[in-house]
């Protein structure tokens, strides 16, 4: 990079006589002032749009707040009602299955394709970009519309399914098949973790494989003993990110089910139910309780990932 070339026009041409260095304390105060001045946008946003609202929603979770009727403190009522609410339990189940089944499939697909593309061959870059494309548009309403059409009765997936002996009728209206359809939509967007895996694979020194080959290790052994351990930090990163992402599906489920979460609550994702309760029915207190419950669950999952990571994530070789 031509850093110095680009930098020189900005720097003053003539060096003024060097100012006497201000005493450390004053200089530190100036640094602090500059630091907070530069941090101001983020700090303001953090207080007004993240931390403040988080505290507010914690309070709301213990009220029955409604945008028009207002609300009052009801203690843990929201939380106890949640566990009697069959639609809530359905939404938690749908989301949990989606996260637990979908995330590993997506990561395996991403890793497999990354390994396929991890060689210097013609077209590698083109394939990489092509496979990434769905990740970019997957959350859009356009894609949800297409997905609905492709998985509808008489869509191509239905045709292929019938060829393999599945009953006709499409996936969109069949409560047993809507969740697999949503998982396929998630897996279809394997591009983002794939690109990250690919970057990780390129960091693995070739000598390791050469040494392993000299020792007579086959491809599977090389994969288990070299690729996986060397890739574990990247795998960890992808796992955390994709798991958290999987709790946030909204647009596609909303469009495919017409906002209902149907048929039979089979696409009633957590976010969708939260939206229905909070913004559809104005039960903002109840929705806030749902949101906090999710934060707690996501927090626990993330904590478990981080705590267990020392047993399977290896930081070696790159000076860490």
């Amino acid at each position, binding site marked *: 990079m031509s850093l110095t070339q*680009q*930098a020189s026009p900005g*720097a*003053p041409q003539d060096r003024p006589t060097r*100012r006497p260095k201000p005493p450390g304390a004053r200089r530190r105060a100036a*640094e602090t002032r*500059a*630091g907070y001045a530069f941090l101001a946008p*983020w700090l303001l*946003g*953090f207080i*007004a*749009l993240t*931390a403040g*609202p*988080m505290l*507010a929603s914690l309070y709301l979770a213990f009220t029955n707040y409604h945008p028009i009727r207002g609300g009052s403190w009801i203690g843990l009522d929201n939380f106890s009602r949640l566990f009697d609410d069959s639609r809530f339990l359905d939404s938690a189940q749908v989301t949990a299955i989606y996260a637990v089944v979908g995330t590993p499939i997506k990561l395996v697909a991403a890793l497999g394709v990354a390994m*396929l*593309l991890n*060689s210097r*061959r013609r077209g590698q870059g083109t*394939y990489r*970009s*092509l*496979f*990434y494309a769905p990740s*970019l548009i997957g*959350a*859009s*309403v356009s894609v949800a*519309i*297409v997905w609905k*059409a*492709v998985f*509808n009765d*008489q*869509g*191509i997936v239905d045709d292929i399914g019938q060829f393999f002996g599945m009953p006709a009728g499409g996936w969109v209206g069949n409560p047993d098949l809507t969740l697999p359809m949503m998982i396929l939509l998630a897996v*279809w967007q394997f591009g983002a973790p794939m690109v*990250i895996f690919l*970057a990780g694979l390129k960091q693995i020194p070739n000598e390791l494989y*050469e040494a392993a*080959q000299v020792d007579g290790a086959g491809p599977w052994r*090389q*994969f288990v003993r070299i690729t996986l351990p060397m890739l574990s930090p*990247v795998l960890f990163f992808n796992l*955390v990110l994709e798991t*958290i992402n999987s709790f*946030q599906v909204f*647009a596609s489920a*909303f*469009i495919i089910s017409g906002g209902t979460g149907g048929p039979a609550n089979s696409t009633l994702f957590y976010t969708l139910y939260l*939206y229905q309760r*909070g*913004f559809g029915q104005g039960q903002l207190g109840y929705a806030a309780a*749902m*949101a906090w419950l*999710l*934060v707690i669950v996501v927090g626990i999952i*993330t904590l478990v990932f981080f705590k267990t990571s020392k047993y399977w994530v290896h930081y070696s070789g790159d000076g860490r």
Partner: protein
Amino acid sequence: MSTVSHTQEAPEATEPPVPPSPVHAELLRRARRRRRARTVLFHVLSWGLAVVILYPGVWMLLSAFRPSNQIIGQTGLIPDETTLDNFRKALEGIGGISFWTFFGNSMILAVGSVMGICLSCSVSAYAFARIDFPGRRIFFALMIGTLLLPFHVVIIPQFIMFNEIGWTDSYGPLLIGKFLATEAFFVFLMVQFMRNLPRELDESARIDGAGHPRIFFSIVLPLMRPVLATASIFAFIWSWNDFLAPLIYLRSPDSYPLPLMLRQYTDQTTVSDYGAQMAAAVLALVPVLLFFVLFQRYIVEGVATQGLKG
């Protein structure tokens, strides 16, 4: 997979100065054949995957040219009849509001987001990456924490707040966060980038008497062009595709961005005109695809470098 090592071995094998013995030649031939077989396999697999992955998109594009009654139930790609009717109808828009109004609204939101994110995130990232002040580490940890925070927990109080100050049905709630660096992804991306810029640059500028504003605007910001490009592309596309926030905040249809217009098409109450629906879905994706075709290297590399360090 051991594919890489094969390409490495080949030059070694050809090296010996003595003419290869018949056995050696046979081994070479076999290695070459195996390499060719692997290359063929690579392309077959990649092509197969590409076909499966691209099918929905290609089907959507070509369906948009089919007469409306021939879309559902057609799994093939090539239309029997082609028509531009769907696009005409899609451009007419919905409820007397032209497609271009929705398109313009999306554009305002996307461009606003890009501007907000580039401004606020670069400034904040500079504080994290280049200024030493008490509290920086804690704030940085908090910033990373928001990266993992489900957004559900803030949308409800935010909605109440914006409702109280009368901002609903305006673009304020959709844009303000972009100008206040709330999307930690972009701050993080820029911090990572700035950390790789040589420190000597600002040190020498400091000796010359430049303060932080000067260092930021004349030295760091110009060097940040690549990361600003990456951030802009993502900011644009994410804003363009965003559905939930407009759904929550916008009430009047003539302020809707494209995703909300598309949603009207899928409503049971309106007539299901599949052709117009497909054409509108295609048109809504055009800017995103255009961006992707033009900048795919930036996009893909942006994802890769962001993921490198956890």
